């Protein structure tokens, strides 16, 4: 009974699914993968994350263009945290490759729930990034296992399906989103493999975000609204601040 209620909620608004998946990943990381976080820290993380997310969301939403905020709140909060504190970093390798099957399933689940609406951002990003990695391997005459290993990264999949996919901060037109995803993938590749910076995708997203209004100005499309099918229209529940996690 409870399960079906949860499913109903998820079907109504994919953000519930998103929260469920990301919370499960966090627990999986803490309990199974041993992220090396103490329980005290884990408990302290909740209010800290909420505060940073709140701050990030508010600050990220400050720059607005055509009723859309420019920066992805989760991305903005992450970069803000890394800039403000020398005690914050992104551990992109900690997911390992063993759990990659579960990751793929979770990401596909997201596609199903959103009925693949606006899924081109995630798919084009992964395709462009993957092509760059395989192209690099081809040029260097590296074995195919190298780009495959680089793609089997949990953090990359979380980024592709739960961060860059945010429909409120991506271009309105489908073609615009494809252009944007390709751009983010190219900048991410450049940062990661030419400038040798860790966290290429996260930095690429914040660097490319100001280009969304430009793309929107050139390519018009419908403004996205989170779909809420069954509950009454009177429901004033607003967007949930938690949008992505690494």
């Amino acid at each position, binding site marked *: 009974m409870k399960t079906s209620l949860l499913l109903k909620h998820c079907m109504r608004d994919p953000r519930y699914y998103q929260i469920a998946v990301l919370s499960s990943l966090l627990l999986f990381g803490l309990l199974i993968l041993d992220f*090396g976080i103490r329980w005290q820290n884990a408990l302290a993380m909740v209010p800290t994350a909420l505060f940073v997310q709140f701050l990030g969301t508010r600050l990220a939403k400050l720059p607005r263009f055509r009723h859309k905020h420019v920066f992805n709140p989760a991305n903005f909060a992450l970069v803000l945290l890394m800039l403000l504190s020398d005690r914050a970093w992104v551990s992109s*390798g900690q997911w390992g490759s063993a759990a990659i099957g579960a990751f793929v399933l979770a990401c596909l689940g997201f596609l199903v729930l959103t009925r693949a609406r606006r899924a081109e951002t995630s798919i084009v990003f992964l395709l462009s990034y993957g092509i760059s990695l395989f192209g690099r391997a081809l040029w260097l005459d590296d074995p195919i296992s190298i780009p495959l290993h680089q793609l089997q990264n949990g953090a990359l999949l979380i980024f592709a399906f739960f961060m860059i996919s945010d429909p409120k901060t991506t271009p309105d037109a489908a073609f615009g989103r494809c252009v944007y995803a390709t751009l983010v993938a190219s900048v991410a590749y450049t940062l990661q493999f030419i400038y040798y910076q860790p966290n290429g995708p996260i930095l690429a997203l914040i660097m490319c975000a100001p280009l969304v209004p430009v793309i929107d100005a050139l390519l018009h499309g419908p403004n996205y609204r989170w779909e809420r099918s069954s509950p009454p229209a009177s429901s004033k529940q607003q967007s949930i601040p938690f949008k992505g996690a690494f």
Partner: protein
Amino acid sequence: MRVLVTLIATAMTIAVATTAQAFCGFYVARADTSLFNKASQVVLVRDGDRTVITMANDFEGDVEDFAIVVPVPTLIEREQINVGDRAIVQHLDAYTAPRLVEYHDPDPCMRYERFTTMEDLVAQSAPILEKVEKKANSLGVTIEASYTVGEYDILILSAQQSGGLIKWLKQNDYKIPRGAERVVGSYLKQDMHFFVAKVNLEEQSKLGYQYLRPLQIAYENNKFMLPIRLGTLNAKGKQDLYVYALTRSGRIETTNYRTVKLPSDVEVPEFVQSEFAEFYRDMFAQQVSTENERAVFLEYAWDMGWCDPCAADPLSTKELRDLGVFWIGENGDQQINREVAPIPAQNVFVTRLHVRYDSEHFPEDLVFQETGDRQNYQGRYVIRHPWKGKASCDISNYQAEVRTRQEREAQQLANLTGWDIDSIRKKIPFPERTTPEKGPWWKRLWS
């Protein structure tokens, strides 16, 4: 932003000893000596874009057969190369080594505690002729520099094609493993140069060293990684690499592989004291297997200013500076005489990583990042000796506790190492039961 060139890599050599520490690259010998890589020890000092790498080796054999080839990111000048002190790397190894700690149970009949501890470390413990240059040019290989540093003759090579470089190395009696051309080609396309070193016998006999000292290279580059691909080429099976990182802010971790803490603070049976090496080896193998052979293991992460318990003293300011920690003791004014003063906070954080790798499970070079994590961690295993003195009171309760504890230790040991639990139990001197075992009544029914 500056265009960044590629990184460094390390070298290669072989080692035959049981606690082999060799370079992590591939081995090239000048003669047909049958040698293979076993393990490598690399010290990485990193702050910002500045890196100092120290490659230690315990090469055993005819030094005439020793040669290393190291991919490096930029042209390396004479002043960027140094020959270090092997004892400092050994000291760092001892300081960061996983340790066994021993406690003795107090006399259960005494009302006060007698408590002693002991730390037991089980330490794993030519000049280039002109004609050579001409020949090199004809193969598309450029000898960009040649130096004699300490007992080493060093060449910095660049090449247009990997084929030319491989051919040149072969012509100069370097033994190149099969498959090297492809990997060398990949590094060349990433604008890397090659650092080639061999032993200058004349210089070595003048210096009088009986062993090869570690080579050190300092460079500035924001790629923080360690190429391991070359090292898999001539290796027979998996090989081990130890990376000691000395940083300013916190521990390092790999960004493209999982970095996992080894189980620590585990109580193990007493007999492990005499089998600690086997215990650690098997426990490590078990953990490698649990992580699907794809993880890098953290063995030690600690502020260099202290230790608890100390497997060895922290490194002195001079030793750290010799390893390349350039941000301390700039003017020698922080030199501390340890005999009269304790080690002060050094603003140096040490990380010891241990990776067992092969090309199948580690296809890509190791890429690192410095984190802000300064939580101390050490591989620490505990032995608790039961009281063995003459009892002056009824100690049956104490003995029952000891039996329970020993059984728990046996199970923990079996889980950690994969050893057979019955064989473990046979090695444990369980105290004799003087009273019926407590527990469910049916346990005592027919026994």
